[in-house]
């Protein structure tokens, strides 16, 4: 703090009768990292929620069995190695010498306990999807476990990037729906193997952590970490500029433009896992498409490949990124961000051609266009509402009168689940970094018995795609599986029932020269991997 600032602070304090305001505003010593985060955890129980912000906080206290790196590539975590033994068994070799915060040893018992605990304690944002394939956990020796699955589960290691390991001793008494929140929120059961120990937490408030000096990856750079939940984007940034926090996440695109020119701030940019996808209902009859007078159409125009191509040709992705997102995104032509497992280089780049779009509409029998209601979320991801408005204008240019409805996710998702919409857009995050997660949920025809197509809300069905996805799910060889997913991706994108628009990007901001971080694709802000610049 400069002398001038101190004098001013002192004068102000005297004037108001408030003592020592100046001294307290300064950021605490370099040994403390204070982070302003947009969202915080929902509980201190790592098995309660699958939400990204929840996992972000939990990764400080607990370790996952399999680690996901900066670009979501899978790496050894608490498991040192893994291999399939046969079609329904995976062997995981556990890391030796790892200790929990209370000094007890990490063993196979804890892995078994953690997996079996999830179905009992998980909340509505459920983690079940990450362990649903496991039928039985067999302890072979204290550092070897065999996972018996309900069929060939090629992506089991990917699923386990969200499998947090709790201590089977500390959490034993806190593993029912009623006792778990109390045990974990009070800190009694919040015993992990992670880089930081739990100190205190308040819902929607601060999470305070202290360094675990015996961490197996080595000692973390910060003695103390405070994660403050600040949901308002402007306030979070103001707190950074006022020196109250050292680092903030989710800088908005408008602020980012200004920060790039600010000499006192460093920004860190990463592609997120989120892709904005337009989804076109493929049912025979669809509710929200009309003729120009507002009367229902005899058949669903969105089933016509020409209409779908026309819609795609109407979208100017470059403009969307530059104007609507102010540069904070990259145009995308498929359901996953570039480079993820199953991303296909063969999907042709999309360029806008409204004239051709109009011609295609005429060929399809709609020379004057038609009318439709477009629905999108407006409060879930950065820019979702604005992209929706942009789409509406672009569709209008090829003669489709579009009524834009950018609405709250609390209204959007229930209605979308009931299939009340015809054409709608929301983001999808490929959280596991590979295709089975995304394509299996969205592009396979709805098949509850196979546990596939759970988020296929447009009843898209291509038998060839189904076949490829099922074959890939059984294929344990990585290279062959990758090829199968790429083929499936080519077919899905050529069908254009899903039209991908942009990959969103995420920005962090910190005081200039204060710290170094490598931004992660999954948007986590992990204190252990953030180092002081000096």
């Amino acid at each position, binding site marked *: 703090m400069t002398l001038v600032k101190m004098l001013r602070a002192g004068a102000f304090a005297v004037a108001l009768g*408030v003592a020592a305001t100046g001294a307290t505003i300064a950021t605490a010593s370099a040994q403390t990292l204070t982070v302003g985060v947009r969202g915080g955890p929902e509980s201190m*129980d790592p098995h*309660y929620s699958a939400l990204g912000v929840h996992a972000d906080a939990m990764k400080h206290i607990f370790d996952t069995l399999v680690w996901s790196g900066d670009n979501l590539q899978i790496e050894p975590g608490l498991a040192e190695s893994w291999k399939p033994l046969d079609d329904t068994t995976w062997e995981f070799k556990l890391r030796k010498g790892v200790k929990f915060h209370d000094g007890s040893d990490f063993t196979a018992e804890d892995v078994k306990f953690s997996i079996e605990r999830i179905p009992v304690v998980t909340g509505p944002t459920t983690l*079940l999807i990450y362990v649903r394939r496991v039928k039985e956990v067999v302890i072979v020796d204290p550092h070897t476990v065999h996972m018996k699955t309900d069929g060939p589960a090629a992506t089991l290691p990917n699923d386990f990037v969200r499998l947090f390991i709790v201590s089977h001793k500390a959490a034993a008494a806190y593993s029912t729906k009623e006792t778990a*929140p109390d045990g974990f929120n009070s800190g009694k059961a919040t015993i992990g193997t992670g880089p930081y120990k739990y100190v205190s937490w308040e819902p929607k408030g601060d999470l305070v952590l202290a360094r675990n000096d015996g961490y197996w990856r080595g000692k973390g750079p910060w003695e103390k970490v405070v994660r403050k*939940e*600040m949901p308002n984007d402007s306030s979070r940034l103001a707190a950074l*500029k006022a020196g109250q926090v050292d680092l903030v996440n989710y800088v908005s695109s408008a602020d980012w433009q200004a920060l790039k020119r600010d000499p006192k701030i460093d920004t860190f940019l990463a592609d997120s896992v989120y892709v904005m996808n337009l989804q076109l209902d493929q049912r025979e009859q669809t509710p929200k498409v009309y003729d120009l007078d507002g009367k229902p159409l005899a058949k669903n125009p969105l089933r016509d490949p020409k209409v779908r191509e026309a819609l795609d040709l109407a979208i100017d992705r470059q403009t969307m990124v530059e104007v609507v997102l102010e540069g904070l995104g990259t145009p995308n032509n498929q359901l996953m961000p570039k480079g993820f497992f199953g991303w296909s280089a063969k999907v042709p780049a999309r360029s806008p051609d409204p004239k051709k779009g109009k011609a295609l509409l005429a060929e399809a029998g709609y020379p004057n266009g038609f009318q439709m209601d477009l629905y999108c979320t407006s409060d879930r991801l950065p820019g979702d509402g604005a992209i929706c408005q942009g789409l509406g204008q672009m569709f209008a240019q090829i003669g489709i009168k579009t009524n834009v409805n950018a609405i709250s996710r609390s209204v959007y998702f*229930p209605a979308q689940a009931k299939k009340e919409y015809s054409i709608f857009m929301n983001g999808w995050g490929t959280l596991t970094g590979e295709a089975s997660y995304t394509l299996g949920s969205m592009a396979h025809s709805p098949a509850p018995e196979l546990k596939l197509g*759970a988020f296929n809300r447009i009843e898209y069905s291509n038998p060839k795609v189904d076949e490829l996805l099922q074959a890939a799910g059984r294929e344990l060889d990585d290279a062959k599986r990758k090829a199968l997913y790429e083929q499936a991706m080519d077919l899905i994108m050529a069908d254009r029932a899903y039209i991908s628009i942009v990959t969103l990007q995420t920005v962090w901001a910190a005081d200039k020269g204060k710290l170094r971080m490598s931004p992660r694709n999954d948007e986590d802000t992990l204190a252990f991997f953030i180092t002081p610049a000096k």
Partner: protein
Amino acid sequence: MAGYVIQRCLQAVVVMFVMSVIVFVGVYAVGNPMDVLIPLDATQDVRELIIARFGLDRPLWEQYLVFVGNVAQGDFGRSFVYAIPVLDLIASRLPATLELTLAAVFGATFIGVPLGIWAGYRPDALSSKTIMGLSILGFSVPTFWVGLILILTFAVSLGWLPAGGRGPTVTVLGVEWSFLTPEGLSHLLLPAVNLALFKLAMMIRLARAGTREVLLTDTIKFARAAGLTEGTIVMRHVLKLIAVPIVTVFGLELGSTLAFAVVTETIFSWPGLGKLIIDSITSLDRPVMVAYLILVALLFVTINLVIDLTYAALDPRISRGAAS
């Protein structure tokens, strides 16, 4: 008087009952809360399992009866999002909102009323005109904007005060308060000022209008004729005569600020109730919404009751009128 209080309490029960029905039906009409909370990629069997676990597969009337049964035993249920009992969740946020609201409303009243009386007492003085001019600003500038400007000025540019958050707390009587430490006070100052501005303007205008009216009455003329000093007249007579509308507004403002200080709380990252309820609405966390709104209804009924009792104390004619 006892009968009057009992009647008010019965009214409160009815209001709270209606509130719970409205929220239940309202959330049901928006959609199944689980569609917002369950991950998008959950398979159908997982989805059904979770919905059944929270009892949301049952018909609405059955869910409502279960809820009423639990409330009768003092259990408002657990939050869908946080899994902890709703009352604990609300209780953990209440002190923060309470101290912010009390600081704002009392501050506005104790500063606004004297300024208003002065402006009414000397309507043509330059100071009065300045006060009235500034009060128009307080009315017309939106809260969120003032909040951001306050942060920009005092936290970012000048660096005098923190930009948000609540600061350290001290536990007194089992409750955590931040206004007892200098640092806590420095955190409280900006949001309290932000929240108080509108109320301050309103108090000034109310007090001024009342004072101007009262000064023309016979009471004041006779008091002056009796040789009372101007100070005594203002303190003893004017203040008492303008008190009834001010107390009314004070009560209503206290209630509405307690319940809906959300804009200020969001901008200043203040961990209060407003943020809790907004988050609960966006995630359709029904147990929290129901419990919160029922408690807000209770709060308003209580405040109105206290106001009515205060009237009777301030102006004996009111209670006599009620009796006859």
